[in-house]
């Protein structure tokens, strides 16, 4: 799975991405991803 359309990149930094997610039922969550800059 990859970031879907209901995700919003809030901040991308060195090695990480902060993402806001909204579920189909409207539940909001914050997720932290590891990101390796290319």
């Amino acid at each position, binding site marked *: *799975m*990859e*970031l*879907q*359309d*209901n*995700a*919003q*990149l*809030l*901040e*991308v*930094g*060195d090695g*990480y*991405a*902060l*993402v*806001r*997610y*909204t*579920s189909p039922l409207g*539940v*909001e*969550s*914050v*997720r*932290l*991803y*590891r*990101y390796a*800059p*290319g």
Partner: protein
Amino acid sequence: MLRVRQTRHVRTSFLFDPHSMIARSRQCLRVAASCVWLALVSAYADRAAAGDICAAEAPRFSTRDSSGVAISVSRAAAALHIIADDDELWRTGEAETDRVLFGQVTDATRLSDGRVLVADGRQMALQLFDSSGRWVREVGDKGSGPGQYSRVSALLRTTGDSVLVYDDRTGKLTTLDAQLSPVSVRRVSPSLRRPTDSAAVYLLAAVSKGVLDGGDVLVSRLVASRVRAQVTNMSRDSLVLQRESAADSLSDSLTFVLGLQRFEYYANNGDLTFGDVPLGYVESIAVGARGFFVGDALTFNVAQFSLRGTLERFMRVCHEPALLDEREIDRTMDEMLSAMSPSSRAMEEPGIRQLPRARFTPAHLELLTDTRGQLWAREFTYTGSAQRWRVFDQA
């Protein structure tokens, strides 16, 4: 006057013909023909130029125009990045056992020690999590004093782990120190020079946040808003970037006007100058460390400007527009309308349904910059598809 309020997740800017949106501007109606003509000519002239330069063999190369501006051209679809679920480190706000259930997350920022601060538009306090995603404590509360908020819309980490907190209901910009205690509060308002107009058409993507080199200066969506600007005796929907210093010694602004290839620069001393945007259509803006990026979603051209509005680099991705799927337009429009209140929908749906539709897919959906100042451009995908981001290096 048509009003379209866009939720942050429903991307609707691709739905409508941007040239028709220019003509929809109330004051522009009187000169609609010339407005549309101007936009069409510039867009197609740009595309023609892109076609020529994209005929080169090299997948990626740089050159300079006659005035010395660097032009970077990419023919390859490389540098696309996808963030996969496998890369997830933690999440919060979903499980019943989570300490905090969010109402409407407006922003988040990660501190240098890995802690994460989250702003929720329906809670007055900020929420602090440790580096493993465990809730630590609330920061601030409701009120009008220092460290008290009404609605926090944006967070920005600056040098030394200071955090800027913008309350868009009160216009207050609070600086928190590394311990997240308030050290200063000031009021900023992008409407000081311009009257705001709530009837503006809200179709542009939001401006991504960014801190400039120098630490005490920022230009960001914190204080960006769409207002009416008087340009060449016409009033248009526009986007203002306001730059402020923490020491209150600087306050200048750049105003981009929807559909025009020109911007205004108001210096701190009150001088007004104009600059040109070599794009067919100003659509999205992102702020980097040394300046800002202005994108044209029709052609995938991105212009990089210095803080004072000097064109420094021009990025062009060779892009072949594809025909938009009418069913996807219907689906996205239904989704947008369903998010409105019944009264708003009753008032606005007829006008929205009548807007001329875009025919081609845009080159990108939004721009943002990462904390290193690299530009990210989100590729166009239909609703429900995975996101793909093209990352530009500094070269």
